[in-house]
């Protein structure tokens, strides 16, 4: 507001006097504006930016949890980090996890939402069933999954054997452990995505489908392409970014089920951070991992705001 009035005033009145009075008036308003922003800014500083700056600062030190003093060591933590094979394994595993879980959870969530939406009865029952994993504690659910995936008496292998297929030691095998975790990750994220997609589907005007039908979009696929998918654009962007960020944060299943093993095949960023920071007490090093993690999350957020700016808005 004040910006606008100042520019207009300056453009309209070329005389020096008015120009001198305007900034005074403007600065008074600026003071008020700053005063009003202060509480929120202070909160943000204390709760978000402060800790963030703290973590970044910590990553330049050799601080160890509980140590009486620390020294600034510059980029040494990062040098160690980038030289460490475990870090690269963790990063690769995390990215693989994200690349598998995000499309899986988004597509499955959308498919289930479409099925529930097109169904006539038991809608709320299905909704509840698919939403259960979101409400349940993942740690507790991980224990259930451990039983399900048990090589000898697990349900999954039992079913595979019943179908005459070879069984796997899912979580104990290097080649399958990460994919087993991905499956659990998808299972856990699907419900949340489904609820978001359902909300998006409900808000699509029915008349658009009727118009599509009249316009000749007779197949379900044609109507999906013409109406559903574009109208879900904003929801989809949001769901992809949220799933992406949550997948980057994967920790609980890894910690409970595999501890990053076997032989680091399921080591992921946050788990590395946890082991370094809370088991080996190398807080500075853990902070450096956190910063790397934050860079990825920030990237995702930037992509999202870029997409949002590009106009997925409709009136």
């Amino acid at each position, binding site marked *: 507001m004040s910006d606008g009035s100042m520019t207009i005033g300056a453009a309209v009145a070329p005389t020096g006097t008015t120009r001198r009075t305007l900034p005074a008036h403007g600065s008074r308003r600026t003071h008020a504006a700053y005063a009003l922003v202060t509480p929120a800014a202070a909160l943000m500083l204390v709760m978000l930016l402060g800790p963030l700056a703290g973590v970044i600062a910590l990553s330049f030190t050799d601080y160890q949890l509980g140590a009486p003093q620390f020294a600034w060591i510059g980029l040494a933590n990062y040098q160690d980090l980038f030289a460490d094979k475990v870090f690269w394994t963790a990063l690769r595993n995390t990215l693989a996890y994200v690349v598998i879980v995000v499309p899986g959870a988004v597509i499955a969530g959308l498919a289930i939402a479409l099925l529930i939406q097109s169904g006539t009865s038991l809608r709320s029952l299905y909704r509840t069933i698919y939403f259960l994993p979101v409400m349940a504690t993942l740690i507790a659910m991980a224990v259930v999954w451990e039983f399900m995936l048990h090589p000898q008496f697990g349900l999954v292998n039992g079913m595979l054997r019943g179908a005459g297929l070879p069984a796997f030691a899912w979580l104990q095998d290097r080649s399958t452990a990460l994919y087993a975790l991905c499956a659990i990750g998808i299972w856990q994220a699907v419900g949340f995505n489904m609820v978001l997609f359902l909300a998006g589907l409900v808000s699509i005007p029915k008349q658009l489908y*009727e118009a599509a*039908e*009249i*316009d*000749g979009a007779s197949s379900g696929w044609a109507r999906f392409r013409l109406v559903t998918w*574009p109208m879900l654009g904003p929801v989809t962007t949001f769901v992809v970014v949220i799933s992406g960020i949550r997948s980057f944060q994967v920790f609980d299943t890894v910690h409970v089920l595999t501890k990053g093993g076997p032989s680091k095949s399921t080591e992921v960023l946050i788990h590395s951070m946890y082991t370094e920071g809370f088991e080996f007490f190398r807080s500075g090093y853990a902070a450096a991992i956190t910063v790397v993690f934050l860079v990825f999350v920030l990237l995702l957020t930037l992509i999202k705001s870029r997409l949002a700016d590009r106009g997925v808005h*409709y009136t």
Partner: protein
Amino acid sequence: MAQIELSAIRKSFDGTDVLKGIDFRIADGEFISLVGPSGCGKSTLLRIIAGLEPQNSGEVHIDGRPVDGIRPSARNLAMVFQSYALYPHLSAFDNIAVPLRMRRLSAIERLPLLGALLPGRRAKERHIRADIEGIAEQLDITPLLRRKPGQLSGGQRQRVAVGRAMVREPLAFLFDEPLSNLDAKLRVHMRAELAELHRRLKATFVYVTHDQAEAMTMSSRIAVMMGGELIQAGTPAEIYNEPGDIRVAEFIGSPKINVLPGRIRKDGGVDVLGTTLKLTCNAAAGDCRIAVRPERIELGTGPFSGTVVHLENLGAEAFVHLAVEGTGSRLIARLADVRHLPAMASSVAFGFASDAVRMFDPAGKRIELRVEQAERVREPAHV
């Protein structure tokens, strides 16, 4: 270009009968308006014609061919929705292109990237572009083609929606209250445009509206619906002058037709407000209702008198609200000459010509009248 025939269409939602057996034939090239108050089933009937709603019983024939069970997309009808239902993510051009692309391109050709590589796609797109540009020119929306619906005004969206309907040359156009979201001035303008469009295309138009002015001004025929029944169909003049039912008489015309309580005597004479009218009928003696249009009420002379309780001067015409003395009846007279308005609260004599009277029985059905003389009911009749 098609004729549409409806026979014994019935429809109920959750046990409520919305349509109670509609029989109607729409001729080729006709501009037919379905009018009626909210909830009379006119939109449902249109949706049944379009195929968006299945009827419980009855048949719809388009050009003699039964279309029941045929998908809306296969009926080759175009529909303009009240909300326009434009695809918000597509430009005006692409919106208009949708029906053409859906029909002329195969599913594979419509695929975003792969489709563009197919050999036939380019030529087809060229034809589509040419068609759309022709339509845009007719509707005067060429400069708007690249805009998205969100960047268009109500009237512009309306035109794009009409363009989308026109572009594929459908058998008939269905309009579902297309002007009700526009402001009053634009509505009057679009009314003229739609009527002109109909004259130019000579296609069958089925137009649903609750606005009797739209129906009166545009249609070649009006079908009045009430409570799930089609009460009367006819040209606008017929509907206005010769309503077959008191509900039709009251619904069509603004301000509303004046209705006065009357009585049919044994000899067929009619008394109203203590005066005998110079007309007779063959109906049985008993109560009846006398209806006279506001413009047929003549102020200044006549056997009746009333007090002016309200005046509405619209500039070109004026409406005088009268409370009839000695009864609780109110009526409205239209004055073409606003320079000589009666004063508020003054007593005014009024009368009406015998041929202005439409009479209805207590059930609302029209009673035919015989005018005794062409003379006007001015003096109290001597019985």
